[in-house]
């Protein structure tokens, strides 16, 4: 009653919840106690194991399990935190892609006159004979004699033929002779189209120069296609002989092509463009090619903040046979990518404003074990002929070019040259066209193996384009604008610009949303192990340590016991036999001393789990061993207050 209520409560608490000291009086006892009572597997085995080697092994195993846990959990945590960070990296500022612009017409027709006049003359004549019309002044239809007297190679090399009927009777345009043709016929166009009038079928014949009996005949349902293809073959021959520097001069300069330029609200000029010579499209200009190390980026979406250029398309200077449409070709690509204008370019109309809105998508596939793609292209046996980063397109083209050089001896004009090769022209390689067509056919039918060798690239960037067209210039603004632009164009061109010579192009990001598609492995090693551990733990509350335990007990120990039994038996049998032979009686007690009681077999390394538990403690232990700790048997309270006999005991040891 005299006690204060607070003290009373504390006393009560002391009575009902007495604070006891540690679980064991000494450190070694404590450790022992812990290891025998814990749920974790390894620790118990350390204590229970008999023999130094075995204990050492178990210590090693337990420690490595601890290490593995720390490592794997650290990996998981890092994964967790890095995943939550990596998404925020996508900031609204997007790098602007490279934009390559080409005139559809590769070279100025006026300056190509020297090289092409012969060919053009021949083409005109061909048109005249086929269709009976003539261009320009040459109205008089020339006789066949004159044809041969002009002495041109073009028809000798590849004769244009007109088919009389579907049988192989043809009229040679040059000689007017009718003859029968041998060899296989290839229809370049679909055969359904030309089912009608067989008179209209026009084609040309390509023969193997070494073996003139082997010929292939290429036919077209339309004369337009036939003549264009025929023209192109000769054109490539001629162009292959002109050195690159000359070709660059023959094509359009940056001043010729670009009238005005505007990027992200600021004026830009030809210094922002990089020239790049394309074999089929002449000089092309790449905006933001990243050549000087900086890549421009846009801060906001919308047409005002993209690239705006006015292009000068000199329609009067077009090659009439090579290209039949007017305008420019553009392609949006990554700075490291090669622009395949001829394959995936977008065409732009003249006298119109074309707005191209872009959406940016980045994709990433997982490489080797997950899918068949390549990271850098280094693991593909095809040499990259373009000095740009790997893509499937580059691989296919390079592969074809390599096959071309190998089998035809020269390189195709539209693709870059491999080391040591040169472009085909029929002065040097009279056979190349036949060879090329044969090879190309094989390539298309996937017989060259290129499609099998080349793999997809693992990561690629893609710009989805939305194109819309408005009339430009509007009728009211046409007048002043054309005047200002003609003035800008300068004194070089005296004539006033026509609106059909101009094209307005806008390329911009529609919005700054970047879409990133990536594959993630569904099972990484960490997650696989986690799932495994989860299953084991859930159904058996077992771990790797416990698996090892099982292996130890059931395989190693039981096996050794069985083996020993057998050995003993064999030995006994042998001894019996010997004794029978010798006639001696066996020693007494031999039979009893078997198994674990046999001193022979109590060596350091032999106990098993079961026997370890069953066996009495060794008798010769000088000190009474501490019994396995029990909560009730430990009298720690008294031990700690005054006596502390354990310390003395420890000191004795």
């Amino acid at each position: 009653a005299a006690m204060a209520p607070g003290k009373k409560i504390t006393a009560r608490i002391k009575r009902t919840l007495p604070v006891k000291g540690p679980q064991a009086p000494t450190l070694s006892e404590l450790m022992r106690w812990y290891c025998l009572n814990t749920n974790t597997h390894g620790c118990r085995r350390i204590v229970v194991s008999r023999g130094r080697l075995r204990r050492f092994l178990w210590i090693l195993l337990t420690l490595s399990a601890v290490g593995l846990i720390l490592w794997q959990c650290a990996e998981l945590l890092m994964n967790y935190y890095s995943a939550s960070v990596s998404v925020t990296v996508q900031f609204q500022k997007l790098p602007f892609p490279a934009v390559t612009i080409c005139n559809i017409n590769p070279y100025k027709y006026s300056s190509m006159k020297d090289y092409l006049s012969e060919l053009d003359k021949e083409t005109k004549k061909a048109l005249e004979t086929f269709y009976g019309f003539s261009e320009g002044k040459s109205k008089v239809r020339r006789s066949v004699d004159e044809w041969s007297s002009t002495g041109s190679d073009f028809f000798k090399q590849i004769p244009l033929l007109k088919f009389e009927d579907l049988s192989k009777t043809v009229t040679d345009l040059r000689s007017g002779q009718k003859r029968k043709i041998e060899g296989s016929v290839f229809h370049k166009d679909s055969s359904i189209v030309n089912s009608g009038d067989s008179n209209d079928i026009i084609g040309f014949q390509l023969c193997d120069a070494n073996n003139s009996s082997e010929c292939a005949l290429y036919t077209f349902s339309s004369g337009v296609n036939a003549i264009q293809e025929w023209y192109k073959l000769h054109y490539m021959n001629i162009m292959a002989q002109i050195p690159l520097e000359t070709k660059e001069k023959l094509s359009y300069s940056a001043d010729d092509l670009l009238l005005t330029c505007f990027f992200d609200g600021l004026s830009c000029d030809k210094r922002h463009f990089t020239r790049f010579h394309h074999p089929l499209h002449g000089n092309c200009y790449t905006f933001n090619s990243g050549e000087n190390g900086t890549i421009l980026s846009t801060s906001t979406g919308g047409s005002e903040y993209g690239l705006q250029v006015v292009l000068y398309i000199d329609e009067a200077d077009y090659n009439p046979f090579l290209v039949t449409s007017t305008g420019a070709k553009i392609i949006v690509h990554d700075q490291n990518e090669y622009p395949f204008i001829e394959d995936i370019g977008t065409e732009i109309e003249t006298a119109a404003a074309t707005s191209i809105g872009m959406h940016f998508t980045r994709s990433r596939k997982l490489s080797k074990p997950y899918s068949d793609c390549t990271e850098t292209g280094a693991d593909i046996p095809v040499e990259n002929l373009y000095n740009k980063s790997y893509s499937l397109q580059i691989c296919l083209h390079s592969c074809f070019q390599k096959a071309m050089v190998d089998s035809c001896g020269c390189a195709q004009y539209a693709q870059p040259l491999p080391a040591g090769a040169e472009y085909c022209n029929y002065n040097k390689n009279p056979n190349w066209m036949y060879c090329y067509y044969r090879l190309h056919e094989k390539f298309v039918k996937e017989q060259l193996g290129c499609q099998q060798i080349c793999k997809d690239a693992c990561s690629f960037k893609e710009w989805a384009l939305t194109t819309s067209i408005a009339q430009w210039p509007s009728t009211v603004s046409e007048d002043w604008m054309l005047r200002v632009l003609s003035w800008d164009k300068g004194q070089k061109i005296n004539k006033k610009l026509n609106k059909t010579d101009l094209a307005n192009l806008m390329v911009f990001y529609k919005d700054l949303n970047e879409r990133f598609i990536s594959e993630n492995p569904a099972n990484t090693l960490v997650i696989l192990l986690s799932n495994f551990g989860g299953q084991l733990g859930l159904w058996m509350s077992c771990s790797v340590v416990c698996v090892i335990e099982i292996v130890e007990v059931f395989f190693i120990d039981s096996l050794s016991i069985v083996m020993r039994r057998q050995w003993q038996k064999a030995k006994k049998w042998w001894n019996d036999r010997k004794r029978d032979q010798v006639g001696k009686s066996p020693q007494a007690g031999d039979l009893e001393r078997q198994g674990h009681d046999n001193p022979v077999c109590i060596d350091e390394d032999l106990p098993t789990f079961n026997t370890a538990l069953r066996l009495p403690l060794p008798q010769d232990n000088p000190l009474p061993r501490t019994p396995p700790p029990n909560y009730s048997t430990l009298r720690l309270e008294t031990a700690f207050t005054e006596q502390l006999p354990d310390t003395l005991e420890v000191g004795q040891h």
Partner: protein
Amino acid sequence: PCRFELVSEHLVQLDHMAEESIAFLYGINTSASLFHMNEKNIHVRDLSSVGNLSRSGFKLSQNFSLLRMSDHNNRSGKKHSSVGFRLCNATGGNCFYKTYSSGMDAILEWYRFHYMNIMSQLPVIINISDHEEQIEDMVYSCQYDGEPCRPSDYVHFHHPVFGSCYTFNSKGTDPFWTATKPGIPYGLSLILRAEQKDHIPLLSTVAGVKVMIHNHNQTPFLEHEGFDIRPGIATTIGIQQDEVNRLGGNYGKCTTNGNDVNVKLLYNNSYTLQACLHSCFQHIMVRKCGCGYYYYPLPPGAEYCNYNKQPAWGHCFYQLYNRLRNHHLNCFDQCPKPCRESLYKVSAGTAKWPSAKSQDWIRQALRHQNGYNSTSNRNDIAKVTIFYQQLNYQSVNESPLLSENLLLSSMGSQWSLWFGSSVLSVVEMFELLIDTLVLSLLFCYQRFRSKKT
């Protein structure tokens, strides 16, 4: 955009000025051919209220004239000349030239600058739409799902760049506008007039109509995402909806409705990134330059810039704008992306319309019904059809690679794989640790005492 009577006088003046500077720069006399049609069209009405406003003492400034500069540092040897205009701050110092390599761009920018000044004195309170053309002048025919549209279906708004714009189905609540079937016949079909004679020749050089497909309750930024429609052409626009859902939180900044964004939106529509950026810029502009940029809406209490009142605003504006572009203003940090976004993928095909055979009767019919009066056979009508390609939509969702409970469960699995135990055994270990500590402390204490004695 069309001309308002209110400021038409000034616009005529501006046109004359432009004409003079073109003549000065290029030595071409353009007046005869270029501007004659404007003067015919303008009849200033002597409405008393309007008249007073237009004589509010605004005058075009001659300070900002176009100049030609030639820089001789150009290595190519050719004389490379550029055209531009000079902008100075209030005291006349710190001038810089805004130059363009092409005269066309320079003239356009210069004209826009003046145009903004003129337009800025239009009072905001006046309901602009009263003064503008009616929808009948622009949309000749409207059909949706085979039925004619009702007059209540569109909302008119004034766009600072394009003038009158009309939004169909802006609320998205009317059951009339629900899409029932995909395909061209079930879409929205419009016949539009794209007249060019009222165009301001120096403001925009393209002709046509802008169409934008956007979400309900979203401010359309036609200048950013508008789709051009060419006159004389029938355009079929197929749309496909994509939905993007972002996780937000730790996984990236985004906002669900814009309430948690620091920037006060000036557009009274739902939150978009563009709207936030524009609002942010306008707020900074009002703070730094003292007036608002004409193309963006005004915050309360501010007024649009005009160089009679703020002679240096152009200088201030262009510098500020440069900083925005270079990310020196922190607008991009303040404006997160919306967490939930609908995007419309657009693909279009075109055909000539009306065809040569049918154009006579089409024009006749339009003339009868809509008062379409075009004598020339110039192309100034266009047809647009907007339809769903598919009624299903793609949805792109962000999901965490490793969520919290997945993390815990895999950590637990790891633990039980290598050790076969649970959190409780970790607690056991802690107990052991504490015991060890206590024991070793006691041991030390004992030793200390025994030494003393």
